Each structure stands twice: as structure tokens, then as C-alpha cells.
């Protein structure tokens, strides 16, 4: 009995001397460690609007909306489950999951983020083809191939149907 009481007293004194273990979180910031999967951020300079992230998002937090001349890639943080699939599949490394985790807000606009990209239209028929950056990327990739000189300027800016038609024309004319 005595030893138990003594042990309690020792424990109390030790607890009084020691600092509280809990963090004073909202008052004092508690940053997440490096490598934490937090708020998703786009590098607007790098994104080509290929929508690989949209295809692979298991929670459908990402959306791709194409209307005429603009493609918008949109992320709703409220739906995001922070799995990091988009970061993994992005071919341009344009997505990073930052260490920001506190996304509490009273305004709906704050839990949304988007990238807007220009869509090029087909030079022949005027149908939307792909974003300007995607076409630039294709041009860069086929740079070293032996192609007719006007491929760059013309053929790469056509829609799929027109491309086929033009290629057939070129073939018949003996230029390919």
C-alpha cells in the first residue's frame, strides 16, 4: 500500500515536471514531413492537358472539360483522396502532392483549382483537335523523322479525319 502510494507520488511529480506531449496545433503550425501526400498542385507551365490524371483518378476528383477553344483540367479537393495516382501517371511531371494538408475553408471556390489550356482547331475543317501544347509536343517528338517539309506547319494541326485525307492526297501525288 505504502509503496503504491509512493509510486503514485513519484509519477505525479515526474508528470508535473515534464512538458505536455500534445501539440498546440492550430495555434502553432505543425508542418507535415517531406513526402507527405497533401494538396495537389499543378505546374501550369508544364501541363499539356493530356488528361492522363483524369483517366487515372480513382475518386473522379479530376475533370477535363473541353468546350470549343478551351480545355479546363479541374480538381476538387473535396473529392480528392490523396492517393497520388495522378502524380504517378503524369507524363510531364506537372502534378505534385504538396505537404499542405489544412484545406479548411468557408468558400467553395477555395477547394477547387484548375488549369486552362488553349485548344487548336483543325486548319482544314475547323474541328477542335488537341491543346496547343500537345501538338507542340508531338512536333517535338517527330522532329527527327524524315517527313515532308510542310508536316510541321500543316499536317500536325489537322484533325484525325483530315489528316487521313491529306495523307492520302500526298501519297497519290507521290510526295510520301
Amino acid at each position, binding site marked *: *500500500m505504502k509503496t*503504491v502510494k509512493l509510486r503514485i507520488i513519484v509519477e505525479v511529480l515526474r508528470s508535473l515536471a515534464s512538458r505536455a*506531449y500534445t501539440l498546440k496545433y492550430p495555434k502553432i503550425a505543425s508542418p*507535415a*514531413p*517531406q*513526402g*507527405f*501526400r497533401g494538396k495537389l498542385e499543378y505546374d501550369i507551365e508544364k501541363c499539356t492537358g493530356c488528361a492522363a490524371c483524369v483517366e*487515372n483518378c*480513382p475518386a473522379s476528383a479530376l475533370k477535363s472539360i473541353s468546350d470549343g477553344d478551351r480545355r479546363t483540367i479541374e480538381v476538387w479537393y473535396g473529392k480528392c*483522396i*490523396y*492517393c*497520388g*495516382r495522378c502524380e*504517378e501517371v503524369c507524363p510531364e511531371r506537372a502534378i505534385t*502532392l504538396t505537404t499542405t494538408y489544412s484545406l479548411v475553408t468557408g468558400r467553395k471556390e477555395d477547394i477547387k483549382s484548375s488549369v486552362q489550356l488553349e485548344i487548336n482547331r483543325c486548319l482544314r475543317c475547323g474541328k477542335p483537335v488537341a491543346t496547343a501544347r500537345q501538338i507542340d509536343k508531338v512536333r517535338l517528338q517527330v522532329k527527327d523523322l524524315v517527313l515532308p517539309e510542310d508536316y510541321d506547319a500543316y499536317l500536325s494541326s489537322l484533325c484525325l479525319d483530315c489528316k487521313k485525307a491529306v495523307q492520302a492526297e500526298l501519297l497519290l501525288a507521290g510526295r510520301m
Partner: protein
Amino acid sequence: MSIDATLPIGPYHPALKEPEFFKLFLDGEKIVDVAIRLGYTHRGIEYLAERKTYNEIPILVERICGICSNVHPMCFCQAVEETWELQVPDRARYIRTIVGELERIHSHLLWAGIAAHIIGYDTLFMHFWKHREPVCELFEVLTGNRQNYAMNCIGGVRRDIDPTKHKALILETLSQIRPSLLRLKNAVTEDPVVRARIENIGVLSRDQARKLCVVGPVARASGLAIDVRKDEPYAAYREVGVDVKVLTEGDVLSKMLVRLLEALESMEIVKRALDAIPQGPIRLEPKEIVPGDGIGKVEAPRGEDIHYVRSNGTDIPERVKIRAPSYMNVPSIAPQIKGASLADASLIIAAVDPCFCCTERIALADVKTNRESSVDFESLAQRWRRKSKYSRKDGCV
């Protein structure tokens, strides 16, 4: 034997996370019988999984349970790997082992804390959770999140463990919590009040355990030496080895001890795996989707978890079947709870560890007067805690 009252506990949690329904038939304070009903937490995960691609399912099944969030994706990936005959890289197998064992430590500490909370010993609860916290913080660094680690993918793991930085951090964390855990284990076994509340309560005999096919720590506390890690080694358990802890009493005390001993053993496994981890790739890109079927088996902190996958060659599986360990363990509550006093009911239900959660209300019905009343969780918890107080007054301390 007369039944003078029935006490429905649940469905929004009796004492545990999953909403289950327990109808207790009482004779005074004594529990005469119990009716268990499951199915309140049905979310249609299997149905959903049959409509998602193989890449999305690990992330979906990860959310079956917040505590075992490495077990389910690992089990699913193993089932798919068996179907597609994929040979997972060695390094990935070791990383799966390390994450799985760290998860076991945090899960068992969480459970021990909850058990301490139910018997009204909140100091012990705080201490258990205090030492669980470094493990969760370790997960933040290793995997990027405290829970829902998103570590597993078909063919390996998604993140590597840094051989210098992460290894040092893991070893430091483990060496920091190990002495505290040993001290807490002694607190459980030596404190007379705690002992009085959990010893010889909720006894599940070896025969009953075998008949009810219980799995995991519940079976091992009753003297059944079953452990998937030992019986059918997966990941890197064949190489690192497992010392299966078995106790024979089958009461709540031995269920607690078996979990604490397992947490300590997990630390040893993590250390051995970190020493033996080979270099190499962590992920294998699957080449083709092979039709066929496969089974994944993983020893979750709560017992054996099984996933079955049938592939028809498309990128969406034809059938996904999941059997979580708690499903096997919950029926074992019935023989344990019969004859116990009402104040021990919550502890016995909790001892099986079918996940803990926040219950709000419990309905009381008196059969004699046909009167129904509703009490909130706290006032019933008061009753459980009062029993601890009585034990203290009875001269245990």
C-alpha cells in the same frame, strides 16, 4: 433461468467501430444470451470493385478499414499477382513486410488503448496512444499518410524505403517506443485493478475457438497456434521468420497480452527485414492481363484476411470477394459473453477487436414493464467505469 430484460446494443456501435447489433438478454446483471446481427456497414465494395480497373481497386479496398489500410490492398494485389503469375521483386516483398508489421504495431496499440479506456483507466489509454503516435508519424514519412498508405500496387510497391534516412528513422522510433511498451505491458499485468477487470473474463476455450473458426489474436489467445505468416508465408516472412505468440487462457487478459507480445515481435521482424532488405527494383509492370483466378491471404492485425479475384482478361475483374478477419471473430462473442455481467459486455465485445468507433446512443428495453428508454453511450460507460471503482474499493489496491 429467467430473462427479465433485454438490452439492445448498437447498431451504431456497441463499443466498436463497425456498426453491429448486440441484443443482450439479461437476468438481473447477468447476461443469459446474446443475439448478434451484422450487415449495417455494407457499402457495396465488392460490387464497386467489379466496376473499376485493376489500378483503382487497391485504392478502393484500402478504404474498407481505416486501421488495416495496408492489409486489404496487399491481399488484393497478392490475389491478382497469383492470377497473373507475377513474380514480385524481392525488395518490394520486404517493403510490404515492413509496412505490414508497422501497421500491426499501431493497430495493436490502438486496441490496447481502447480496452484501457473501456475499463475506465484513461491514463493507460493515453499512454498507449502516446506511443502509437510515433508509429503514425513514421508512416507519414514512409508512405505519405498516417492511414491509407497507398503503398501497394499490382506487381510491387509504390514507394521505396531509403536505406539510410528512413532506416535510421524506423530504428530510432522503434527503440524509442520499445521500453515504453514493455513498461505498459507490466502496467497491465501488475496493476491489480486492471487485472481484476480483465482476468478470467470473456473466456474462449480452445475447443470453442476451433469450432467457431476464429482467427488472429483471438485464436492465439485461446491456444490455437494459427498465423498465416507462419503457415503460408507471403511477402518476405519466409526469409525473416515469425515467432508466433500463443497463450492458452483465452480470457481478455491473454487477448491483451498476445497483442502486446505481437507488437513487440513485430518490432523484431521490422529490424530483421531492414537488415536483410535486398537492392533492386520495387515494382514490376504487368505485361498482360491473364484470365484465371487467384487467392490472396494476409495476416491482418485481427487475423486472416482473404481476397479472391477472378479475371476474364479485361482490365476489370469479373469477381472480387473479400473476407475480413472480424467476420470470423464476431460470432465468438456469443460463448464469451454468456454468463458475464453487464458491466463486462462492452469489454468482451471489444476484446475481439472488430474495430472501434463512436457510439452515440444505446436503447434500453425492460421486458417486464414493456418500457423502452434510451441512454447515451456516456452514461452506460459510467456503469463500466463504476465497476473499476468498486474493484478498487474492494481492497485490490
